[in-house]
């Protein structure tokens, strides 16, 4: 059996007296699209920070492709998209992508930059400062930046926040494309409809622990909503 792309083993995290996560365990297979659903403050972002190696768990262990997430090789396979842009407003789109392509040592970077700019329909604005972009355009460039080094694992933390319908549609189309390409994707969102449209599996995180781990296939958003609320009020289901 192949090594899972992501394994979270009994992870807990506290910030002094504040508990963020308690005994969270799950795994994600290569090529799987998993949505993590939960209310604000449930611990979704903390979980993604730990998975990406930016933050260490207080207890438990995380493995990316069988090894430590802070390994340089693992970081090169990873991309994070969140409400934070990871872009410099005082550089143009092209300069931002050139900078990241050098950091990630992207081969044939010129062609790759052209391709990702084309994917997010920003080729015509590549010489403009990012500070002059609208929120939707900036988020599209964020996606281009994340896909630049062709990551094996995509971590998306509420990526639809503040986007207009056009940008949401484009992001969904791009994510479907990434899924078809066999990339492993973990998405945190409040949006049950989008989660149902994109995911193979969903996890509900409530009161800092996983309370539901279910398959998405054939499940409509209303069923997920019911499961979501019953898991939050009831207890663990699987």
């Amino acid at each position, binding site marked *: 059996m192949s090594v899972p792309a992501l394994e979270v083993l009994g992870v807990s995290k506290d910030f002094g007296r504040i508990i963020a996560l308690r005994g969270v365990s799950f795994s994600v297979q290569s090529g799987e699209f998993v949505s993590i659903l939960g209310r604000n403050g449930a611990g979704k972002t903390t979980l993604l920070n730990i998975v990406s190696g930016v*933050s260490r768990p207080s207890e438990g262990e995380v493995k990316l492709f069988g090894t430590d997430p802070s390994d340089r090789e*693992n970081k090169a396979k*990873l991309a994070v998209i969140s409400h*934070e842009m*990871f*872009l*410099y407003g005082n*550089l143009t789109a092209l*300069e931002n992508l050139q*900078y990241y392509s050098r950091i990630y040592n992207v081969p044939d970077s010129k062609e790759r930059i052209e391709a990702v700019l084309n994917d997010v329909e920003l080729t015509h604005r590549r010489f403009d400062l990012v500070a002059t972009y609208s929120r939707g355009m900036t988020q599209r460039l964020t996606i281009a930046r994340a896909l630049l080094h062709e990551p094996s694992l995509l971590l998306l933390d509420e990526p639809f926040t503040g986007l207009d319908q056009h940008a949401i549609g484009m992001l969904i189309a791009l994510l479907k494309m990434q899924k078809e390409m066999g990339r492993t994707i973990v998405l945190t969102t409040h949006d049950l409809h989008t989660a149902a449209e994109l995911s193979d599996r969903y996890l509900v995180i409530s009161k800092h622990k996983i309370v539901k781990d279910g398959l998405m296939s054939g499940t409509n958003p209303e069923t997920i909503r019911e499961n979501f609320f019953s898991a939050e009020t009831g207890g663990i289901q699987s």
Partner: protein
Amino acid sequence: MMRTAISILKKDLRMEFRSKESILAMWIFSLLIFVIFNFTFEVSRLVMLEIAPGLLWVAFVFSGMFGLNQSFALEKENGNLRAMALMPVDGGQIYVGKFLSVTIIMLMFEALIFPIFIIFYDLHLSLGMFKLIPVILAGTIGFTSLGTILSAVAVHTRNQQILLSLLLWPLVSPIIIWSVTLSGMVLSGEVTEAFYPLLLRVGAFDVIFFTLSYMLFDFILED
């Protein structure tokens, strides 16, 4: 190996040349210091020679604080600090890139402000003044090598500027005091045999601060 550091340096310099935010703020601040001190105190040339090195370094380091604060403030914007923590590179390389950019910006500012200092305090240029170059280089590198890592620590907090001052001043004071002493020797034309050992001591502190910061930077980037 230096690819990451060079990329960060190029990115920072490009952004600085585009906005001129740090250099302009530093230059105006130093100019104010020189103007205020020059027109407030009417002292003899002899006394002026005694206080001039101190004034020069007050201008350098207080203005340098602008540069240090700015350096990681622009990384915090749009979550770029987190992007740095996610990069598949050695944290030391990120440190070197940021250190180089802060140091180069500060040295450029110093080169721009030094002629103003000479004019305001009516100092005579001589060949001996070239000895100020290693002094300014060593003092600046000590200040920025420590300032860069402490700026990265402070940027995670709400009171970034206060914390940076509180952390930096006690540690960097010896370097600044020695740099003032060395500059005083050069400006007064009285370079004694104590000059080179003292310069070497500043250099040794630079190496220690730089090496420790390089090794520790990975931990600073983590949450």
